[in-house]
């Protein structure tokens, strides 16, 4: 199990790291939605290229990036492999009597391109600022306070519970337990998960008590200071236009 440290490299220095958090979230979100709904293969390729450049500018270590993209690729690669054989359309070629279609191949490739571009954009957006900054930026962007608080508290306790769980897991391991997909091991796993839930439930009570003793009323109140300067507006505008340009030109021309 790894720690969910998306912001491990948030202290690097790059233009993207210095970009105002709110402007970053808005412009990248627009980019991401734009990228995942593209239906033209050539524009999808350009988008991928564009995402690469952004990652490059952000100076995030390549190993970190690959490690994060891995999961998405594992999910979408089957589409690329299977779609050409299962989707209907015009025949591209036949291997051992199995028809491979042009439409299927294009769809498969589109899915992989869109997914990869999107995940790289997400990484560039989130890995270049501390996660608490991200949450505060969302707060400044008027995301409902209820959600902000839930994100904030849940994020904090993930680390506490991860440590707690790992300690239990080690104790089991040191008594010779090995996790396998059999009845015995799974029902033992049920016990640890149950214990984790019981402990968390009791902790939830204590956390609530300590919040009450600090005057918590249910309303989110945080102090944040961001100052957006002209540069940030310019970058946001630039990013969005660069992304949309190929699309516009294609539609217009």
């Amino acid at each position, binding site marked *: 199990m790894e720690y969910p440290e998306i912001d491990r490299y948030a202290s690097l220095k790059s233009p993207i790291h210095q970009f105002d958090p709110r402007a970053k979230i808005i412009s990248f979100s627009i980019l991401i939605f734009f990228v995942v709904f593209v239906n033209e293969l050539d524009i999808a390729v350009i988008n991928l290229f564009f995402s690469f450049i952004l990652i490059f500018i952000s100076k995030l270590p390549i190993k970190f990036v690959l490690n994060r993209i891995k999961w*998405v690729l594992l999910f979408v690669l089957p589409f690329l492999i299977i779609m050409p054989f299962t989707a209907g359309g015009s025949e591209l070629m036949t291997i051992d009597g199995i028809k491979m279609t042009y*439409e299927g191949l294009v769809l498969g490739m589109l899915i992989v391109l869109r997914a990869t571009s*999107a995940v790289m954009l997400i990484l560039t957006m989130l890995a270049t600022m501390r996660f608490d900054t991200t949450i505060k930026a969302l707060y400044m962007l008027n995301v409902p306070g209820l959600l902000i608080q839930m*994100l904030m*508290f849940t994020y904090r306790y993930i680390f506490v*519970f991860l440590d707690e769980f790992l300690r239990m897991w080690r104790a089991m391991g040191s008594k010779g337990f090995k996790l396998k997909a059999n009845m015995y091991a799974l029902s033992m796993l*049920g016990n640890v998960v149950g214990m984790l839930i019981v402990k968390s439930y009791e902790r939830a009570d204590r956390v609530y008590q300590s919040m009450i003793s600090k005057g918590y009323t*249910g309303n989110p109140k945080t102090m944040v200071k961001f100052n957006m300067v002209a540069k940030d507006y310019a970058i946001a505008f630039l990013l969005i236009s660069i992304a949309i340009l190929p699309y516009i030109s294609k539609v217009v021309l």
Partner: protein
Amino acid sequence: MHISDGVLSSSVIIVGFVITLVLLMITLRCSMKQSDVKEQIPKLSVMAGAFFVASLIHIPVPPTSVHLILNGLMGVVLGVLSYPAIFIGLTLQAVLFQHGGFTTIGINTMNMGIPALLAYGIFKIGYQKGIPLVLIGAISGGLAVFISVIFLAMSLITTGEEFIDIARLIAITHVPIVIIEAIVTGSVVAFLAKVKPELLPIDMER
């Protein structure tokens, strides 16, 4: 199990967000009526963190491994609040680990969350019928994942007919997960019944 970005059509994505927003409002409003926001929010968030961590457990199923989902268990333990808890959990999985997508948070929450709510109902009914807790726990856990898989397949098929075969394939590969979830949820329920019954929606007077 969580669909990543770039697969689904815009209409499915939008429908996902709309339904999730509506259900979030309903479930939150519903529980606020029973008790205070200032009590619900911290407790819900802390529990969501615990389930997040539990869902990181990988079980080796040769040749690969699968991770726990536990949406049925969340339904049983958290009741209607399982929906917001799943929403927060999936959002954090997407942004912290890039598991599942960013644009698909709405649809993924719907696919996991509605079955969680159903599991809550099934558990309560089963309990009233006097079915043993372990069994009804296992049924709720297995069924929740089963329904999630159906929802997942339907989201793909709604996106385009080209996805029918791959949806079927995904459904088949999830059979072991349904079984694993049933066993794990059953034994968690048995554990809670012994150690901390107030966590289950059961009447302790009986």
